[in-house]
């Protein structure tokens, strides 16, 4: 493990550097190179951050869901593997809250400038807010529960929370209200002008790489915290054995 650490650290720094470089290229594309939207003007450039981040905010919950299922499967069979799955579940839940918060806030700023309103109880907006609330409650449960079964309760909540993800995805296909129709994969008539695609793909790649980077960083932090807890428990046991009877 000690020999692997410098290599892992180098890979982590390389990943961080590549993510940052791709994000800088994406920003340059979105702000300086893409032609101004004829209908919306410059405020339409929010698209290049809002849409990729909204797409990713529906991907991380599935990693959280899979990790939670593995936790539930391993918690009695192999507790050490279960701890690893739990660390991944926690890190993806936090990143889901980060990405969905950004999605909601950038959407509100964009909506106020184009629709004239900050918020409406449209099915897409409401289901996205519900997703955000579900993962915030997941983190609150983990932070404040003192039952001794916190990780199991959180894993079960994660399974229920994952049900909302396909509802968010399908909401603009099932109901046509305030939020625009699907831009990608929406059938005939959907899609964007080809001049918009490079900026979109650079930002999608950038925020994907960055998301993986922060999930792995947070996962490593949680594993470090778990090792520290195990170390403290071992020291307590060793100290109790040294007490003369």
């Amino acid at each position: 493990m000690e020999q692997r650490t410098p290599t892992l650290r180098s890979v982590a720094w390389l990943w961080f550097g590549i993510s940052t470089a791709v994000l800088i290229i994406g920003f340059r594309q979105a702000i300086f190179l893409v032609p101004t939207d004829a209908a919306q003007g410059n405020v339409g450039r929010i698209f290049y951050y809002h849409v990729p981040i909204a797409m990713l905010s529906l991907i991380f919950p599935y990693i959280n869901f899979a990790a939670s299922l593995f936790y539930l499967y391993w918690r009695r069979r192999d507790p050490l593997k279960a701890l690893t799955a739990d660390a991944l579940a926690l890190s993806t839940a936090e990143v889901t809250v980060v990405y969905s918060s950004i999605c909601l806030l950038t959407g509100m700023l964009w909506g106020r400038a184009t629709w004239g309103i900050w918020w409406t109880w449209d099915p897409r907006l409401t289901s996205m807010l519900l997703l955000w609330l579900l993962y915030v409650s997941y983190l609150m449960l983990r932070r404040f529960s003192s039952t001794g079964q916190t990780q199991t309760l959180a894993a079960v909540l994660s399974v229920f929370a994952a049900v909302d993800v396909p509802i968010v995805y399908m909401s603009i296909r099932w109901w046509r209200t305030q939020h625009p129709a699907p831009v990608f994969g929406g059938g005939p008539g959907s899609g964007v002008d080809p001049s918009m695609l490079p900026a979109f793909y650079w930002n999608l790649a950038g925020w994907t790489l960055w998301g993986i980077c922060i999930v792995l960083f947070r996962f490593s932090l949680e594993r470090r915290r778990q090792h520290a807890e195990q170390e403290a428990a071992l020291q307590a046991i060793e100290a109790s054995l040294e007490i003369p009877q």
Partner: protein
Amino acid sequence: MTWHSFFDLSTMPHRHLLFAYLTVWVIQGGYFAWTAWNWVNVRGGRR
């Protein structure tokens, strides 16, 4: 668009474009900084 028009706060659409990009950087950067701060302050145990 130029840097000058990116930081142009004269109209509501321009302000909202800038605020949207700032919101993304502040939240992502803040979360990264919080994780890094904890990384420095959590001592690793025996592996």
